[in-house]
C-alpha cells in the first residue's frame, strides 16, 4: 500500500471570537501558509481536496460550499467534504491517494464555534427521539463521565487539575493557544465547579479558526524535495450511541483504532490527544497504553485552544511539526467526535 507523507501544516490562532471574519477569511490564510510551505500556487496544484466542517456551527445549510470559494476551483477540481472533523477528511484523502487517483491532497477544517452556544448546539447530535429533546449539552454529558471516573477511583479532581496545569504550561510554547500560563493545581482546584465535578478549566474553551494540511505520496514528497513525516498507520472506530451501554470510563473504540494504526509497534515519544475535557485525556492515555516516557499534548492540546472541526487535524499537524523539526521520530495523534468520546481516530506518524 502506498505510503503517505505529510508535507505541510498550518493552523490559525485559536480566537475566542473571530469577529466579522467569515469562514473563507478564516480558511484563506491557512491555505496560503501550506501552499507556501510546499511552493504551490493554489488548489489547482494538488490532485484532490477534502474538507471537514459542520453546518450547525455556521448556522446555515451547506457551510462547506462557501469554503470552495477559498480554493480557486476554476477550472473545476476534484473535491469532497465530510461533515466531521477534518481528521476524517484526511482519512478520505488517504483512500483517494491509495487507490491511485491522486498523488497529493489538500485537507482543511474550519468553524466559527463562537457564533452559537456550542454545548447546546452539540446536544442536537444526540438521538433525535429520546435524547436531543432533553437538550442534554455536551458539558453535562462529559461531567457525568467524569463523575463515573471519580466514583470508580480511576481519576481524582487533583489528577484532572494536573492535566490542565500541564496543558497551560505546554501552551506557553504554542503561539496559537488561547489559554496558556503557569497555574498551580491548588489555584485550579480553588475555583468553583462549573458543571460538577468539572471546573471551567477542565473544559476546552470555545474557539474560532481553521487548519490546513497537505499530504502526498512519499515519491511526491521526494520530488518536491520537502521534509516529511510518514503516516505509518491510521484507523478510526465508532461505538454505540447508547451511553448506558458503554463503559464511559474506558474508550474501547480508541483501543481498537490504536491497534489498527499500530501504535504499539514502536515507542510513542509524543501523543497529541483530542481531549476536550481534562478527564478524557486520562481515559485516552490509558486506552492508548501510554507510559511515563510519552509527552502528552506538548502543544497544550485542545484545553489550550479548540478549533472545532479542525482540532483533530491539528493534532496530526502538531506531531508532524515535531517530526520534521527533528525533535522526535515517532508520535501518535488522536481525533474524536460525538458525546463522551464516542468516535475516535488514531494516527501514527514517523520520521522519514
Amino acid at each position, binding site marked *: *500500500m502506498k505510503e503517505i507523507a505529510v508535507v505541510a501544516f498550518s493552523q490559525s490562532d485559536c480566537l475566542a471570537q473571530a469577529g*466579522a471574519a*467569515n469562514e473563507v477569511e478564516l480558511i484563506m490564510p491557512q491555505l496560503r501558509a501550506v501552499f507556501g510551505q510546499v511552493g504551490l500556487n493554489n488548489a489547482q496544484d494538488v490532485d484532490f*481536496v477534502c474538507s471537514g466542517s*459542520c*453546518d*450547525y456551527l*455556521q448556522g*446555515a*445549510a*451547506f457551510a*462547506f*460550499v*462557501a469554503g*470552495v470559494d477559498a*480554493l480557486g*476551483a*476554476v*477550472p*473545476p*477540481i*476534484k*473535491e*469532497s*467534504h*465530510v*461533515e*466531521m472533523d477534518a481528521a*476524517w477528511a484526511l*482519512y*478520505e484523502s*488517504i*483512500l*483517494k491517494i*491509495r*487507490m*491511485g*487517483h491522486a498523488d497529493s491532497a489538500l485537507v482543511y477544517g474550519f468553524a466559527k464555534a463562537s*457564533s452559537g452556544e456550542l454545548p447546546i448546539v452539540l446536544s*442536537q*447530535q*444526540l438521538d*433525535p427521539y429520546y435524547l*436531543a429533546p432533553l437538550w442534554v449539552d455536551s458539558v453535562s454529558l462529559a461531567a457525568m463521565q467524569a463523575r463515573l471516573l471519580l466514583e470508580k477511583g480511576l481519576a481524582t479532581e487533583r489528577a484532572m487539575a494536573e492535566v490542565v496545569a500541564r496543558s497551560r504550561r505546554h501552551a506557553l510554547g504554542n503561539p496559537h493557544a488561547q489559554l496558556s500560563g503557569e497555574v498551580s493545581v491548588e489555584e485550579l482546584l480553588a475555583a468553583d465547579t462549573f458543571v460538577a465535578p468539572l471546573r471551567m478549566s477542565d473544559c476546552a474553551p470555545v474557539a474560532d479558526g481553521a487548519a490546513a494540511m497537505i499530504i502526498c505520496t512519499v515519491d511526491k514528497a521526494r520530488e518536491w524535495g520537502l521534509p516529511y513525516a510518514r503516516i505509518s498507520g491510521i*484507523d*478510526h*472506530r*465508532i*461505538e*454505540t*450511541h*447508547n451511553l448506558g451501554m458503554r463503559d464511559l470510563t474506558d474508550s*474501547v*473504540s480508541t483501543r*481498537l483504532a490504536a491497534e489498527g494504526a499500530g501504535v504499539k509497534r514502536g515507542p510513542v515519544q509524543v501523543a497529541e490527544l483530542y481531549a476536550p475535557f481534562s478527564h478524557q485525556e486520562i481515559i485516552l492515555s490509558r486506552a492508548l497504553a501510554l507510559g511515563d516516557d510519552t509527552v502528552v499534548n506538548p502543544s497544550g492540546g485542545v484545553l489550550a485552544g479548540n478549533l472545532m472541526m479542525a482540532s483533530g487535524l491539528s493534532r496530526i499537524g502538531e506531531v508532524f511539526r515535531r517530526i520534521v523539526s527533528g525533535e522526535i521520530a515517532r508520535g501518535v495523534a488522536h481525533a474524536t*467526535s*460525538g*458525546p463522551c468520546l*464516542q*468516535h475516535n481516530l488514531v494516527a501514527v506518524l514517523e520520521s522519514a
Partner: protein
Amino acid sequence: MAKLAAVVGIGQTHYKTRRGDVSIAGLVREAALNALQDAGLGWDDIEAVIIGKAPDMFEGVIMPEIYLTDALGCNGKPMLRVHTAGSVGGSTALVAASHVQSGMFRRVLTVTFEKQSESNAMWALSTPQPFSVHLNAGAGGYFAPIIREYMRRSGAPYDVGIKVAVKDRRHGARNPLAHLQLPNITMQEVEDSMMLWDPIRFLEACPSSDGACAMVIAAEELVGESPKPPAWIRGVAMRSEPTMYAGREEVNPQAGRDCAADVYRQAGITDPRRDLDCAEVYVPFSWYEPMWLENLGFAPEGEGWKLTMSGATSLDEGGDIPWNCSGGVLSSNPIGASGMIRFAEAARQVRGDAGAHQVPGARLALGHAYGGGAQFFAMWVVGADKP
C-alpha cells in the same frame, strides 16, 4: 491502479411522502438489511460503513452517523459521513468504493437517506448564509432562470420539459419502489399543472420523499461470495467548481463536462450514446434532462432536447439510450439518497436485476448526481463485464 471493486448488494426502501411507521434509524436499517440480504451477507461481513445525506438541518440531527451507528451494525467499526450537497448520494458511493479500491477494506456498506417528512427542506435551503447575499429561492427558484437561458439559447420548444415529466413518471410506474405512481399521466395534465417557478410547473418538479438506499461494495476476491451478478465499477469521478465566478457557464457547467470526460476515459467510453446502454441521471426538474444530455456528451450543444423529443431516452418508446428507467428523481426524491439511487439503479441495470424497468441486455450504465448550484458532480460507470 485502483483495486477492482463491484456492487454485490443493493437495498432500497419504498419511497413515500411519509414513512411514519419507522424512525430515521428504522429507515436506514431497512435499506441496509435489504442490501445485505441481496448480497447474501450479514452484519459481521461488513468492515466499515459510509453514510451520506443532505444538510443536517433538514432533519435537525447534527452528524447523524453518531446516532445511526447502532442501527447500521457499525459499533467497533469505522464510520465515515460524507456531505457534498445534492450530489452527496453519488459522492458517498464513490467514497465507499474508494475504501475498497484503495485496498484498505474488502467489503463495506454504504447508506444514504432523507426523511423529508421529519424535515423542512425549503426552510433549511433558504436560511440566510452569514455574510452572503440571501437568495431565499429554494432549489426550483435557483434553477428556473438557468433553464430559461437554456431554452433561449437552444430554441427548444416549450414542451420538452413536459415530455420529460411524462416519460419519467411512466418509467416510475414500472418501478414498485417509486414514490409517484402515475401510469396514466398525460402531456396535457403536466401542462395544466400549476406554474411554480416559470418555466417549471408542479408536475415538472421532483416530489419530497422519505427513503433510503444502500449498497454493499466488495473487493474482487470476495465478489463470488454473493449470489447475484456483480456490477463492476469501471470508472469513478468527482468535480467541484464555485457557485459563482465571472464568466461561469451555468447552463452547461465545466465541472460536469470535466467529470464526464474523466469517468468515460476510465471506462473506455468514446461515444456515450453508443457505448452506454442506459443512464440514471440526476434530473430534479424536467428541463435538466436535455441540459444534461448535452453536458454529458450524449448530444451536441443545443440539441439535447431533440433526443428527448425523439423518444431516444424513453424505455416505453424503445429509445436507444433510455434515461432514468427507474423513474428518476422526478418520481422519488429523498434528497440525500437521490444520488445514490441513481448509482444503485445503474448497477441494477447491468446486474440484469431491474425488474419491469430493465433495459434488455444492459451491460454498461452511467450513474450521475449533481448538487449545489449545479457545481458539484459525482459519476460512476458500472458494467456487467469485469474490466
